C-alpha cells in the first residue's frame, strides 16, 4: 500500500511517486489526492501567472495569478465528463472520478514545474523593457515575452504528460490503450483549454487599461483568429 501523506510537505513525495504508487492512490476512493492536486495547481500556477502579468503591471500580475490556475481547473472540469466517457471507450476502464483525478495529477505536475520556473520567468521579465504606450503587438519585447513564457508552459505540459503516460499504462495494462487515451485527453484539453484561455485573455499584455478580463471576452474564438490569420497570409 502507498499511503498518501496528509501534509503538504509531501510535494516531494508526490513528485517522486512511481506510477504504481500513483495508481494505488488513484484507485482508492479518497478525495485527498484531488484536493492535493487542486492545491498544487493553485500553488504552482499562481506564481507563474503573477510573473507573466507583472511585466505589464503588478495588478495584472495579481489577475493572472488568479486566472492561470482558473484556466487549468476549468479545463479539467469542462472536459471531465468527456474524458470520463472516452477512457472506457478506448479500453481504459476507469471511473469518472478516476479519470478526472488522473487529468488533475498531470496538471498538478505541470503546475509545479511552472511554479519552479517562476524565478527564471521573473528574471526574464526583469530584464525585458516594460510595455509602454509605444508598445505594439509586433514589438520585439512583447514577442520575446510571449515566446519565453509559452516555451516554459509547453515544457511543463510535456513533463505533466510524460508523468501521466506511465500511470495510464499501469492502469490500462496496455501501451497502445494508454497512448490512445492520452492522445484523446490531450486533444480535448488543448481544444477547450485554448478557448478558455482566449476568453480569459489578456495574460501578458493587452494594450489597454489593466482589467481582469478584456472588454469583449466572448468575441471571436482562438481557432477563428488563427484561421483568419492563415487566410490573410495565404490569400
Amino acid at each position, binding site marked *: 500500500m502507498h499511503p498518501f501523506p496528509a501534509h503538504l510537505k509531501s510535494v516531494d513525495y508526490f513528485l517522486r511517486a512511481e506510477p504504481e504508487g500513483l495508481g494505488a492512490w488513484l484507485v482508492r476512493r479518497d478525495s485527498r489526492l484531488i484536493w492535493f492536486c487542486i492545491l498544487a495547481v493553485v500553488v504552482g500556477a499562481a506564481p507563474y501567472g503573477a510573473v507573466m502579468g507583472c511585466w505589464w503591471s503588478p495588478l495584472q500580475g495579481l489577475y493572472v495569478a488568479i486566472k492561470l490556475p482558473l484556466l487549468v481547473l476549468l479545463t479539467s472540469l469542462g472536459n471531465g465528463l468527456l474524458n470520463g*466517457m472516452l477512457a*472506457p471507450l478506448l479500453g481504459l476502464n476507469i471511473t469518472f472520478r478516476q479519470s478526472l483525478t488522473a487529468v488533475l495529477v498531470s496538471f498538478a505536475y505541470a503546475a509545479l514545474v511552472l511554479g519552479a520556473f517562476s524565478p527564471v520567468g521573473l528574471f526574464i521579465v526583469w530584464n525585458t523593457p516594460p510595455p509602454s504606450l509605444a508598445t505594439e503587438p509586433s514589438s520585439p519585447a512583447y514577442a520575446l515575452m510571449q515566446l519565453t513564457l509559452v516555451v516554459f508552459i509547453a515544457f511543463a505540459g510535456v513533463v505533466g504528460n510524460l508523468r501521466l503516460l506511465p500511470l495510464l499504462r499501469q492502469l490500462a495494462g496496455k501501451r497502445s490503450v494508454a497512448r490512445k487515451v492520452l492522445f484523446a485527453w490531450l486533444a480535448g484539453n488543448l481544444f477547450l483549454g485554448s478557448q478558455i484561455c482566449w476568453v480569459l485573455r489578456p495574460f501578458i499584455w493587452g494594450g489597454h487599461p489593466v482589467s481582469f478580463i478584456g472588454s469583449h471576452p466572448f468575441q471571436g474564438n482562438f481557432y477563428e483568429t488563427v484561421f483568419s490569420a492563415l487566410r490573410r497570409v495565404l490569400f
Partner: protein
Amino acid sequence: MSDTYRVPPPIPTLSVRPAPAPPPEPLGTRPEERELITGPIAAVEAILRQPRRVMYQVRQPGPGRLILRMVCIVIFCSLVYGVVVGTFSNGVQLWAAPAKIAGGLLITALICLPSLYIFTCLSGSQARLAEICGLLAGMLLLSTLLLIGFAPVAWLFSQSTESVTWMGALHLLFWFIATAFGLRFFANAYAHSQARSQVGLNTWMCIFVLVAVQMTTALRPIVGTAKTFLPQEKKFFLAHWGDCLKPLTQDSPTPALTR
C-alpha cells in the same frame, strides 16, 4: 576446374498468409454480461463500460423494454445537446434546434433501419430484427452520450463566435466523432452475429452517415436562424456547405451567416 553451371538454390518464398483473426469471445460467457440492465443509469453505465452486456441483452428474448429505455435516453440526450446548439441563436432556436436534432436523429434511424436489416440478412448474419433495433438504439445512445460530453465545449464556443459556418463545422466535427464511436460499437456487435462479410455493414454505415448529414441540410437552420421553421429551398448537403463556405474567402461575413 569444372565449368558446371550451378543453379542457385531457389529463393525461399514465404507463403505468408495473415493468420485469420481469432473469433470473438462469445457473448454471455462472463457472468457480468448476463446481469439485467434495469434502469436508465445502468443502461448508460453499460454502454460506456460494458458494451458486451448491451450486445448480450438485446439478443435475449423480449429486449423491448431495454430498447425503449435506450431510445428514451437518446431523445433526452439529443434534446439537451439541442438546447446547447440553440443557445448560439437563442429565441426560437432554443426549442427548434432540440426538436430538429432529436427528430432528425430518430427519422434518420428509421429511414436506415430497413436497409440495415436487409444488408444484415444478406451478409448471412443470424441477428433478428429486434436485435438489430437494439444495436441501433445502443449505437445512437453511445453517440448522443458523447455529444453530451462535448456539450460544455460546444456551449463555450457558441458564446464566443458570431459565425454560423464555424459553429456548424464544430457541431459536425463533434457529431462525426460521436458517431464514429457509435458505429464502432455496432461493428463490434455485428462481429458476433456470424455474418460472412462486413461489406454490407460498411456500405450501410456510409448510407447512415450520408442520410444523417443530408438530414442536417433538410432541417436547416439548426444552428442559425431563418424566417421559416423548415427551408423553402431543397438542396444537397454539399451544395449547402459550399454556400456556407463561400463568405469565408471574402473579407466580411454576410449577415445570413452570422447570428
